[in-house]
């Protein structure tokens, strides 16, 4: 055994180790910069999809904002209550209650709506809407070119065969991006509804009933049958259009059954039923909503 060699090896390596570690530990002290470790922790708690629903460029930016106290812990719209709680736990603050909402579609037109011209251009609702207000005769209806589908950061929207968006209430986080992106969004074609919202209205036309019927065969005709049938006084025809009052609605489905136009539909969590109805199937299509209803 060559003890000299061993001694040399130990000496050499420990010399290097000594120098490097000494330099490092001095430097650590001398060049110390305070960094808040909570930023990293908050980033970890956020979904990380950089969806922008909160109005900040990225999840990291939100995390910085939260740690700096500029943004409330429940800033992440997409993450919902669980993320807000997790962030609040990191920050040591109590999370505020979040209104739990999901997105729903308020048009049942699709191929039942009258189109006045053939559109030739970018397949995008926003682009089409800028040209003569879109091809639909109805100014409130869904143009159906799928801007919402492309905008959704959570892959919760699919366009169906009738040219209408189908929203998956399980994937939807209620971030509201589709509502913002939809050129008809401000006309509440896509709207945020309470997460436990079993009933949605599929028409939002504001013009006269006669004009409406000429434009689309799936419109609300203001017959008031729903208003009469509702046992909870939760649906009213206001300005010739049925409107659901979510404070009172229990999701019993009485209105859905009587609507002659089939423009009232189940959606979301229905009390007492396990399955979740997808938004959008429309009354003519066999859907999980219908299956759940029959079951």
């Amino acid at each position: 055994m060559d003890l000299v060699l061993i001694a040399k090896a130990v000496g050499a390596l420990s010399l290097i180790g000594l120098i490097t570690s000494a330099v490092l530990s001095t430097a650590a002290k001398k060049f110390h910069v305070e960094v808040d470790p909570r930023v990293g922790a908050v980033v970890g708690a956020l979904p990380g999809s950089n969806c922008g629903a909160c109005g900040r460029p990225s999840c990291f930016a939100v995390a910085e904002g939260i740690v700096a106290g500029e943004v409330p812990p429940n800033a992440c719209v997409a993450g919902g209550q669980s993320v807000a709680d997790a962030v609040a736990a990191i920050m040591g603050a109590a999370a505020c209650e979040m209104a739990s909402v999901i997105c729903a579609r308020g048009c049942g037109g699709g191929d039942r709506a009258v189109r006045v011209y053939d559109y030739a251009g970018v397949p995008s609702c926003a682009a089409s809407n800028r040209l003569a207000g879109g091809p639909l005769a109805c100014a409130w209806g869904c143009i159906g070119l799928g801007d919402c589908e492309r905008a959704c950061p959570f892959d919760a929207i699919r366009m169906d065969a009738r040219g209408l968006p189908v929203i998956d209430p399980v994937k939807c986080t209620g971030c509201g991006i589709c509502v913002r992106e939809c050129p008809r969004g401000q006309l509440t074609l896509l709207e945020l509804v309470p997460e436990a919202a079993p009933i949605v209205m599929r028409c939002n036309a504001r013009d006269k009933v006669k004009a409406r019927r000429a434009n689309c065969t799936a419109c609300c005709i203001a017959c008031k049958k729903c208003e009469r049938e509702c046992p909870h006084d939760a649906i009213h025809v206001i300005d010739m259009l049925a409107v659901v009052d979510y404070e009172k609605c229990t999701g019993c489905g009485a209105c859905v059954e009587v609507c002659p136009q089939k423009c009232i539909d189940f959606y979301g969590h229905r009390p007492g039923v396990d399955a979740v109805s997808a938004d959008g199937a429309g009354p003519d299509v066999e859907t999980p909503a219908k299956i759940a209803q029959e079951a």
Partner: protein
Amino acid sequence: MNEWIRTFRQGIGIENPLTVLMIGLCATLAVSTQVQNAAFMGLAVVFVVTMSNILVSVFRNAIPSEVRIPIFIVVIASFVTIVDLVMKAFVPGIYQVLGIWIPLIVVNCMILGRAEAFAYHNKPLLAIADGLGMGIGFWLVMVVLATIRELFGTGAIVWFETTLVRLPAGYAPPSVLLLFPGAFLVFGFMIAGTRWLGERSAARAEARACRR
């Protein structure tokens, strides 16, 4: 014990260092020209990652986090040197063929990554599971990659001068698979393939769940 098995399986499947985490690519792509090289290289990696995981995990409370990275790499480098020296001394025949690849293990980021991400925070038993799982996951992917490259790049798979498989004589192997572009291309197709398979099985599972 359940946790042990779960940790072990993670490395092979959903947290596979190569196809999922994409770490430790350098050595993989460089060595995967021959199944024989890849297999032994992979074994050496399994050894080093497991040993370093154990050592780091055992001393995890004694290693200050400020200097953990230098210490981890000293540990890893030492194990690699040991493998190198031992192979050179005791299995010179194999070393003749494989030896030049062994030092590449030092630069395998996966090993440091596991020490840092797992072993430093977990008990030795779990660290062994992680090391073995990750190592075997690495080994599997590398051998598959090498199989594809060797079989289709040379038309045969040779294991220490024994030809295991030989494609029909009419097959003219495209040697680009053995060159450096081939490594990238084949690996790209491999990831796409695993992803496609994964998606399909996920879709099937979903369909099953729905029917129920």
